[in-house]
């Protein structure tokens, strides 16, 4: 096509509109991530840690959603699946439980594992619907893990590892069962 072809110009403009529309659509997820981070900070999570996690989670969510495809489809399920893992330890902290030493192992850590288990089950169930696409699974797991980590860092690295263990423990049997 020629350089001055008006159809080509229109096509370029249409393409730009499409990409901007996708970016606008992807940015709709940003408030949810920011609210999750704000909730974590409001419940006593260190600001720097929450900010560092949000700085990874926010571009990941927006970027994957903008790119689209199976990975893009995994963002919202990941956020939803990570919500219990984020909320449970924070709720336990807000009812007056102090997460120090052995007390942490009695309540906060199990809450992280249970939250991770819920996330794993939800993601596995949705991944089966998406024909167990590895890109969907990877994106949903990454988003859920980062969302859950906003709350589970209350128990330190053990909380995050416990949550991940919960994800694997609940998700793997569902995925294996679906494969049979």
């Amino acid at each position, binding site marked *: 096509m020629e350089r001055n072809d008006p*159809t080509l110009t*229109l*096509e370029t*403009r*249409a*393409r730009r*509109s*499409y990409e*901007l*529309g*996708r970016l*606008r*659509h992807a940015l709709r997820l940003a408030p949810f991530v920011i609210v999750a981070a704000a909730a974590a900070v409001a419940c006593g999570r260190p600001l720097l840690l929450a900010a560092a996690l949000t700085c990874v989670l926010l571009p990941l969510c927006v970027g994957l959603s*903008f*790119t*689209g*495809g199976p990975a*893009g*489809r995994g963002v919202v399920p990941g956020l939803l699946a990570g919500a219990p893992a984020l909320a449970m330890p924070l709720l336990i902290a807000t009812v007056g439980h102090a997460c120090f030493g052995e007390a942490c192992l009695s309540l906060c850590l199990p809450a992280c594992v249970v939250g991770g288990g819920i996330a794993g089950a939800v993601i596995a169930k949705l991944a089966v619907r998406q024909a167990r696409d590895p890109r969907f699974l990877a994106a949903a797991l990454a988003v859920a893990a980062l969302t859950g980590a906003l709350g589970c860092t209350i128990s330190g690295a053990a909380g995050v590892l416990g949550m991940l263990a919960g994800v694997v423990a609940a998700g793997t049997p569902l995925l294996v069962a679906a494969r049979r």
Partner: protein
Amino acid sequence: MRGRLSVPVPGLSAEPEVAPRVQSGERAELRRLMERLADGDRSAFRPAFALLWPQLRAFATRLVGGPDGEDAAQAALLRVFSRASEYDPGRDALSWALGIAAWECRTLRRKRERRREQTAGPLERLVAPGATPEEAVIERDLRLAAEEIAGTLRPLDLETLLAVASGARPASGATFRKRLERALARFRLAWRAKHGKE
């Protein structure tokens, strides 16, 4: 729809005329392409553009007419692609796109009308000395409506009507009379299509 359209009539719903002519295969293909675009598949962009642009141009030209139709079609095309991520695969893609185009056409027409009202000079607004404000408004509205219909006529028809209005009739009477009859008939047809009465 690949063919040329007949004389455009603003306000006449063009969707029933445009939509059925689109083959069901093309319609289904457009649906699939829009679904892929909504999912972020960029490889569907070019074929979707190639299918959508002629449809939107035909629709907007039919609805608004002439260069305005082209402008409205371009605006609609950009809007359709801008909102492609929101496309619901359960809906018919062509109807969805034509709905957006109809909205763009209406917006463009309103903008043009508003601009015309703003640019009208005080002498044009003053229809007849001694007329009541109500009469003046009615006459102005009628004049605007007639101008709008005249804008959709063929150049020859418009030229004929303007010649009668200005009193400059050409010498060959019989030919001119026939031409005038045809021009008036087309004007009435367009008026009825837009306003439903004479």
